[in-house]
């Protein structure tokens, strides 16, 4: 009886796994099809940055990058094409991924890395967020090095066709229906914010030191060395934030020191006018609104141009 039960179990388990495999394969392919069929939305912007942009100036960073750098304003000032590849919720690993993937296609003249405050703080979320790159694991093998930072079993998990599209069904529907086009209009990757901050209260930005995430520091160094090796002019920027004592943010301090050590220009807008005291240029404490972004984009373009003309 027991033997028969075992045989029955093995047979049915094998059939079951075959069915799961077929389900995963079919659903995974359907998700892949609709994922790459998108023509708007945040996921599409990643695809565009990885596979299509040929801009001479490439901006990489988090949501602060996507909200702060207006390519049209910068283009007008610099006379070069600009694409903003900033992606909300993402960290240094994603930025490096974009750079690596772009370099397999073409070489931008200028790369602007918008450094996030507390970028080098050890946080699991930064590793989890590498999931943004999962749909590209097979078309961009250069990203595997970063994807594997998510955990030791990532290669096994990627045997599933659906896994790269985990949690993406709603954004993919959104991207296919083009709902974001109305909700969040985009200008060459730039996502302007119209709202104005409600009050002038500055949030605390604690002046604390913390253990630094060595993998993040290493990735930051890799961005610097990759640009150097490829002959790309890299500019690292700390864009404005309406926070108290932001100038002494530990990660920004470390980022500045490393940039200086490697002769990379570091533009710190933490305490620059008019952003330091005008809350009306912000949408919230850490994001400029479109008015603030326009002023900032002009300033950053000027700084880059000045440096390109008179390198120090």
């Amino acid at each position, binding site marked *: 009886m*027991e033997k028969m*039960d075992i045989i029955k179990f093995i047979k049915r388990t094998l059939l079951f796994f075959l*069915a799961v495999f077929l389900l995963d394969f079919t659903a995974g392919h359907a998700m892949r099809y609709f994922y790459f069929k998108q023509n708007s939305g945040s996921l599409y912007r990643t695809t565009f940055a990885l596979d299509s942009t040929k801009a001479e100036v490439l901006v990489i960073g988090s949501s602060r990058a996507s909200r702060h750098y207006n390519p049209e304003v910068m283009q007008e000032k610099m006379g070069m094409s600009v694409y903003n590849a900033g992606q909300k919720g993402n960290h240094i690993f994603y930025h490096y991924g974009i750079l690596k993937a772009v370099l397999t296609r073409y070489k931008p003249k200028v790369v602007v890395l918008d450094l996030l405050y507390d970028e080098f703080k050890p946080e699991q979320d930064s590793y989890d967020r590498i999931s943004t790159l999962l749909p590209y694991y097979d078309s961009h093998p250069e990203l595997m090095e970063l994807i594997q930072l998510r955990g030791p079993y990532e290669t096994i998990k990627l045997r599933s066709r659906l896994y790269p599209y985990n*949690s993406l*069904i709603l954004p993919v529907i959104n991207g296919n229906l083009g709902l974001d086009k109305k909700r969040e209009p985009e200008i060459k990757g730039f996502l302007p914010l119209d709202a104005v901050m409600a009050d002038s209260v500055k949030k605390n930005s604690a002046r604390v030191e913390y253990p630094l995430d060595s993998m993040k520091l290493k990735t930051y160094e890799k961005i610097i060395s990759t640009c150097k090796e490829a002959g790309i002019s890299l500019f690292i920027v700390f864009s404005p934030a309406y926070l108290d004592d932001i100038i002494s943010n530990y990660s920004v301090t470390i980022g500045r020191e490393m940039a200086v050590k490697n002769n990379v220009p570091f533009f710190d807008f933490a305490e620059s006018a008019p952003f330091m005291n005008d809350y009306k240029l912000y949408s919230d404490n850490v994001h400029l609104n479109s008015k603030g972004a326009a002023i900032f984009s002009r300033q950053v373009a000027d700084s880059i141009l000045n440096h390109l003309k008179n390198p120090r």
Partner: protein
Amino acid sequence: MLFNSFEFVIFFFVVTSLYFLVSHPYRWILLLLSSCYFYMAFVPVYILILGFTIIIDYYAGMLIEKSTGKRRKIWLIVSLAANIGVLAIFKYYNFLNDNLTALLSGIGKSNPIPYLKILLPIGLSFHTFQAMSYTIEVYRGNQKAERHFGIYSLYVMFYPQLVAGPIERPQNLLFQFYKEHKFEYNRVIAGLQLMLWGLFKKLVIADRLSIYVDSIYNNAEHHNGPTFIVATVFFAFQIYCDFSGYSDIAIGSAKVMGFDLMTNFRRPYFATSISEFWKRWHISLSTWFKDYLYISLGGNRVTVPRMYFNLFFVFLISGLWHGANWTFIIWGALNGIYLIFALISQKYRDRFNEFLGIARNRQFHKILQILVTFALVCFSWIFFRAANFHDSSLIIHRIFTTGGSVFIGNMFLFIYCILAILLLLGIELRQELKGQILYFNSDQLVLRNISYMFLILLILLIGVFDGGQFIYFQF
């Protein structure tokens, strides 16, 4: 090792396969070794604490059985003192010290007692309560003292329920280690079904909701009343799916090997009263408190005021069991108050319902009772989830004084949360009415498999694979 980790998938497959390959007399060794490995995957050194209480309780059990009169009681006290002592040191020492510091600073004095820099051993409250149930049952004469040290150790350490229950009784579990479990197809499938359902609740519902709930509760200063109402309702489902999901995986993985663990949850949010809620929520703990504390205090066979006191006291201790924080104590006390109020007001509520004619429409009355019970439970969850007393008061104040629109944050996340809750309610309503999860028990093989595929597809599509550990591990 977390049930929702890749490591556990490998561990479970290897241990279960070996379990059926190894002959019966040696299976306890396999289970004990694998349980040690499972526990040591968290913080290895804490196995020594388990070892300490296991040795004390093992000998205490035999000494209780051998002794008569006062000596019998003394050995029981030794066992209870050892278990409660471990709990007191690792879980409550710093909490008591904190309160002492606050008390002394109130009268301008400093606290000379040092703080302990210790981590709370995972699942400490669960396995100490299970160990205590053994010596109490031996003392009461309901259980023979276990002579086999390995089997007794396994009773405390059995990996499926080691870190978060269900808190078993010796009469239900010990004899099962002696029974030879054959590979039974139906039983294995039933176990795997439960594991799948538990995993679904954890990955698709609990971990998804936790993203929203954490973003609100961890930034209490910045949100309004309606947002806290939504976050608290989400938390109610989060904690239910997190804990019952764990229990289902635990019960299911034990079932695959042939062990029957006690049911821990029975769709608690369909309860029509607080008293029914506690018969459906964390049943192994509720019955533990009933059997070993409430009844020991006299239970219902005392004067009415004393019975109310007993109820209140048991819930107060239950709150303290959950965590060394005033918020848990208030949570427990609040549930005690709910129950006492329900008992006192029963007569008047019945009359009131009759007067309004609500009682005549049974269906409507039941739905109303479910909603009121759910609202009361949600209110108590505020204390359970808030980081401290200040936050919980702030949240309650905001709920009753502020309006405005609900903070949505990430629209997709919010939609996932709503869909996940609706899906859970739909599945559980069917379970409540038809007694089965989806078509898990259908005679039709195709329907059963479609049910499995449906859950697997949802886990792969919208499950949270980067989620954290189970909430109840901290207890």
